């Protein structure tokens, strides 16, 4: 059955251009910027509240923001210096959040709380991971202590380390594999030990033979009886690194819609995250800096840079030789899923794995024309959805149909828009449809008590869509 499924799924996803300019360049360390801006929302979940105020002196590794909410992660300062102000900031994606602005004094005094961690049990481990402020470093930004502590942890038998890095341009995880393989391995060992997982798979795409060689050599060394570490190379196909796709590629297991990887016995961590865990246990230095790939046609000297979290993006680009011309598009993240920024003053965030800057001639988008029903998006969708039907159902406001079409399964990987010959903004439609669906579901719940039920107008998607859509 799985073989048949595999054949049927052949061709899902897309072949993105292989652009990895920065892969073989050593990571540069960026000097401290003039000021750092630390937003209080750098993770999925409840935003933090600043625990420092203007005028306070802070040290490296000191907590500047925290939250009582279960799904959250504390935020630390990466510099020693003075808190200048607490301002408000609009993050890419439109969320407004408080931000702590700190002026470094250059001394980089380390906070006394930063010391090697004593971890003896699973609970200690989860507490330590929470205290480290770690969130998914691959881009999602989900608090790692939640990921490591799912409700049905005892069923977990496989730890998957995501080093697929399928987005073009981004090489920060690859550099982690090349530069810090030992940390990755001891991080994996720690997770396997405290979560009692027998089998770990490091997933690498086939176009990174060097990373595979380095990791395979160490994997044998770090494996033990009952604690096996395996390196798997996967076909080069976007979005290989998407969690559900990755789990399927590695284990042939499929995460049911609305369920977590742990439901099918898997825990997935990004390779840089797991490497950070080992560093944190050794030193106690929380997540205050990270590696960022800086690339794109506008960047003079593309490279990976180790930066303090909160460094303004403008300074990072300046450090990489500045812009070659006028930047017309600035991305946080990769070209397939990254967010376009309105402002180069925004800081580097915890989950920010790349900064891409493009010149004018790379951003001209083709005009959207009518869907010709070629089915390329349907073929490409890794979640087996029907993007044109979802788009039509969204446009006619048919939330019942959106549910039938499993719109919430969409992970916004971008394959449908990437292949669309009519240049339709399908991902945007998916996103709006998901929003609409969430709204309708919430309204439904609110109404449930009152017993009133309003049926959304059903409409013939094909002709209605056709008559409305003239652009």
């Amino acid at each position: 059955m799985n073989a048949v499924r595999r054949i049927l799924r052949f061709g899902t996803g897309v072949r993105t251009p292989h652009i990895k300019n920065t892969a073989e360049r050593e990571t540069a360390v960026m000097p401290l910027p003039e000021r750092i801006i630390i937003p209080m929302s750098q993770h999925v979940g409840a935003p933090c509240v600043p625990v420092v105020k203007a005028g306070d002196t802070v040290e490296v590794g000191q907590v500047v923001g925290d939250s009582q909410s279960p799904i959250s992660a504390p935020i630390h300062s990466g510099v020693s210096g003075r808190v200048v102000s607490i301002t408000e900031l609009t993050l890419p994606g439109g969320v407004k959040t408080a931000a702590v602005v700190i002026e470094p004094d250059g001394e980089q005094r380390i906070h006394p709380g930063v010391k090697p961690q004593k971890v003896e049990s699973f609970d200690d481990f989860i507490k330590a991971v929470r205290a480290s402020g770690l969130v998914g470093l691959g881009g999602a930004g989900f608090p790692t202590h939640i990921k490591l502590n799912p409700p049905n942890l005892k069923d977990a038998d496989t730890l998957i380390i995501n080093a697929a890095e399928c987005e073009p341009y981004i090489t920060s995880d690859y550099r982690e594999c090349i530069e810090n393989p030992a940390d990755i391995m001891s991080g994996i060992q720690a997770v396997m030990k405290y979560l009692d997982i027998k089998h770990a798979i490091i997933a690498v795409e086939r176009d990174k033979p060097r990373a595979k060689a380095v990791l395979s050599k160490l994997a044998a060394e770090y494996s033990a009886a009952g604690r096996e570490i395996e390196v798997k190379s996967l076909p080069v196909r976007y979005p290989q690194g998407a969690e559900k796709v990755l789990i399927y590629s590695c284990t042939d297991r499929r995460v049911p819609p609305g369920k977590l990887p742990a439901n099918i016995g898997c825990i997935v961590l990004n390779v840089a995250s797991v490497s950070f865990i080992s560093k944190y246990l050794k030193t106690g230095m929380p997540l205050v800096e990270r590696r960022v790939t800086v690339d794109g046609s506008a960047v003079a000297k593309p490279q990976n840079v180790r930066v303090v979290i909160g460094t303004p993006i403008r300074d990072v680009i300046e450090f990489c030789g500045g812009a070659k011309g006028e930047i017309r598009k600035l991305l946080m993240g990769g070209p397939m899923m990254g967010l376009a920024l309105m402002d180069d003053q925004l800081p580097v965030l915890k989950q920010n794995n790349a900064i891409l800057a493009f010149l004018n001639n790379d951003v001209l988008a083709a005009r959207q024309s009518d869907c010709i029903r070629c089915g390329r998006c349907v073929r490409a969708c890794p979640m087996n959805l029907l993007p044109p039907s979802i788009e039509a159902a969204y446009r006619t406001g048919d939330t019942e149909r959106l549910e039938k079409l499993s719109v919430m399964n969409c992970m916004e990987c971008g394959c449908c828009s990437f292949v669309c010959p009519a240049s339709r903004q399908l991902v945007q439609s998916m996103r709006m449809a998901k929003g609409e669906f969430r709204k309708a579901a919430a309204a439904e719940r609110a109404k449930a008590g009152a017993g009133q039920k309003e049926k959304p107008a059903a409409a013939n998607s094909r002709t209605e869509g056709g008559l409305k859509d003239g652009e």
Partner: protein
Amino acid sequence: MENKLVVSSSPHLHCGVNTREIMLDVLIALSPAAAASALLFGWRAAAVIIVCVASCMASEYISRIVLKKPQTVGDLSAVVTGVLLAFNLPATIPLWQAAIGGVVAIVVVKQMFGGIGHNFVNPALIGRIVLMASFPEDMNRWAAPLQGSLVVDGLTSATPLESLEQGGELAYSYQQLLVGIRPGCLGETCIIALLLGGLYLVVRRVISPLIPAVFVGTVFILTWLLGENPLVHILSGGLMLGAVFMATDYATSPINPAGKAVFAAGCGLLTVLIRVYGSLPEGVSFAIVIMNVLVPLIERATRPLPFGEERRLPKWLKR
């Protein structure tokens, strides 16, 4: 650089293929059959193709202006419709009739329903059917191939399917049928050229081989079961043209693989029913048009299963 940054939804990359390029691929795939038609039926075939294309393009251009919509004549879809319409006409057809076919296909079938992607039946086939109903004599006057310049009267002969329908003997060898030396619509006869075009489209991933394979396969199996000569059935009439170029039309065929298979099987079944039991010798156009209308229903019934979901069995099967 204030306010000069372009903010748009992800993804920020595109594969670079556009509608026009796809239509260009279809035209390339049609070119062997077009060349074959000119060789087999002479300059008259080329004239019919040119008239149909011109009529379709003019109809598209004027429709978009009258409807006050963005101009789409540049996407080349009207050219494809024109060539396909011409392929479905006899080479002897009066040129003004061919032009009417183009107007019907583009204005009535395509633009009145919203233009590219929104028509629910195949424009070229409706063009052909309207011409068949309006000018039955001209639409059934078949020229024998390889006669040099065509003299319109006196040269008519029966198509292989017509002679079969009338209980006659097949006058053509398989080799002749493959190369296209037999009377028929100008683009349908040269099977080799059509297969070549189909292969090109499959290799370029413009079409999935599913529809042609299931369509032709169904006709082959059913005619064989019914005691007919299956080879003659798949090599003559408009089957190959229909299976490769008409049934695979994006707008009028299901978008998902399972739907495509059901659709193509239906096309094959109806074609055989019309050919064997109907009063018409040929049924490919009607079969495709009928199945076109059923596409929304087929798509609803064959919706692909989202990743990770289990197929829910219908209640009556659960016991």
